[in-house]
């Protein structure tokens, strides 16, 4: 569904990505692992066009989208759950969700989408009039994911969704992600530092290190290789 080939980008004159390539297959969970500073977030931002790629090629559904602006990519059905939540904190839960359905096609299906996210996250339904900034950390993360679903995406990219959550909530977030894939057929690109949970959820894994893909493979193989675990994952 999404194919990234030898992508290069960075900030100012500092190059962060040195030509990593990866592929996300339709209807699967692909996980991107790597230590802090590896370039995981930069890669997601580059895919979405928030950072302009310097070189390389991005193909989405057999269409070249390398230099398409962000809003056009969202229109094609790519959605990002940004790191650190980025909610509209002064708006209510409901307003945040409506804002998610900003693009035309999403607006048409807004009622269905609302029903869907409220059934996925019943706690949001209970608090739909509350300001987003007053939710607990876990609820805010749920809302960020829910808002991404409101854009009616075909593919969701999640940037460290379990960051800063209690272990029980982390499990809940991963459960939701797996549900999105299994029940709604969404394609998911998951960026995580939580290695164990990601290896369990994903069907294919890439390990990014210093801006390059160092290892890729099935989760079983990665879990099985002591070298990889020690060198890149620290488990």
């Amino acid at each position, binding site marked *: 569904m999404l194919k990234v080939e030898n992508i290069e980008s960075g900030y100012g004159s500092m190059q962060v990505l040195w030509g990593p390539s990866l592929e996300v297959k339709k209807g699967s969970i692909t996980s991107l692992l790597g230590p802090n500073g590896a370039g995981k977030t930069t890669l997601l931002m580059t895919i979405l066009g*928030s950072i302009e790629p310097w070189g390389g090629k991005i193909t989405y559904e057999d269409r070249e989208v390398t230099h398409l602006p*962000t809003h056009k990519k969202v229109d094609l059905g790519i959605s990002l759950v*940004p790191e650190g939540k980025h909610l509209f904190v002064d*708006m209510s839960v409901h307003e945040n969700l409506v804002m998610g359905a*900003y*693009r035309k096609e*999403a607006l048409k299906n807004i009622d269905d989408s609302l029903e869907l996210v409220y059934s996925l996250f019943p706690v949001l339904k209970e608090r739909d009039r509350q300001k987003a900034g007053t939710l607990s950390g876990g609820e805010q993360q749920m809302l960020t994911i829910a808002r*991404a679903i409101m854009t009616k995406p075909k593919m969701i990219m999640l940037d460290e969704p379990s960051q800063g959550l209690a272990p029980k909530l982390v499990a809940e977030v991963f459960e939701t992600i797996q549900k999105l894939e299994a029940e709604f057929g969404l394609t998911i690109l998951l960026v995580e530092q939580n290695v164990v949970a990601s290896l369990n959820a994903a069907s294919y894994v890439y390990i990014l290190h210093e801006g390059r893909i160092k290892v890729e493979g099935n989760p079983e193989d990665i879990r099985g290789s002591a070298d990889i675990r020690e060198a890149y994952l620290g488990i």
Partner: protein
Amino acid sequence: MKKNIVKYYPLIPVLAVYLIMFLIGFFMPGMWQMVALLAFYCALGQSWNIFMGMTGYVDFGYVTFIALGTYGMSLGITYFSQFEWLGMGIIVIGLILAMFLAALAALLEAAIALRLRGAYFAIACIGINEGLRYFIEGAKIWGGSEGLIFFGALTQSLGRETVNQLTTFWADFSVFVIAALAAFLNMHYMRSKIGYALTAVREDEDAAKVMGVNTTKYKTLAFLTSGLLGAAVGAMAWGLKLGHVYPGDVFVIHYTIECIVVVLLGGAGTLLGPVVGGLIYGLSKYWLAIIMPGFQLLIFAPIIIIIIVAFPEGVIGVLKQRVKRTALEKYIV
């Protein structure tokens, strides 16, 4: 259809205030100058608020547009008054030139400065404003630092009587019209897809982008609208009314600050705020200048500080909380 009209209800108090101001000025002798001054502040506040109130970007160089509007009108009259058959047409040409210069500046500034955020954006706008001023002075275009004086040309082509009416009544009256237009556009943007997009930008620009909002497009649209309205005020209230323009008089950041004060007093991002702010600011400035000439700024500064500390959301911000869930709610926005 009914829903469409309901969403414009908050315009009623705004337009009512403008109408009352106009009637007071028109029928009470000696009040016209004061009312015109108030309308000037209301119109500028409202125009500035369209961009700042909705996006949260503070444009410190806003006076650029007012100044370019003034120049547009001045150039139109200076260079076209020799064609007598144009008659009143020179004012239309002046207005078109004002719009053109402001649109050009707004688009250029949007391309450069809107890539920046926060303090960097504010500073870039100031830089562009100062740059333009010294460019006009240094390159000696449009009269350079000696400016353009066209009152004589205006009198010659339109006659003393007409010009008298134009400068003492119609120039001020058009400021009322611009203020009303600014209120309408503000309301229209607030209650449409544009408003949602801009509010999302204000709350969290990165999140807005991820939602698929074309942030550049909407920011530019609001910036352009705000700039054009400011230029129209400049063309009428400074250009046509005064009959002269000097770069050192118009490219002055002080006027931007007055816009900011007006909006903050009344409540940023609200519709009624700039009107209330304009009235408070204009009236107290006028009144303090009479009772304590020379000291008005000294007294005015602490008053503004106190009001902004006590009501950080402005007068209308406080009022909005008060009327929540009452019948007045849908009129106060």
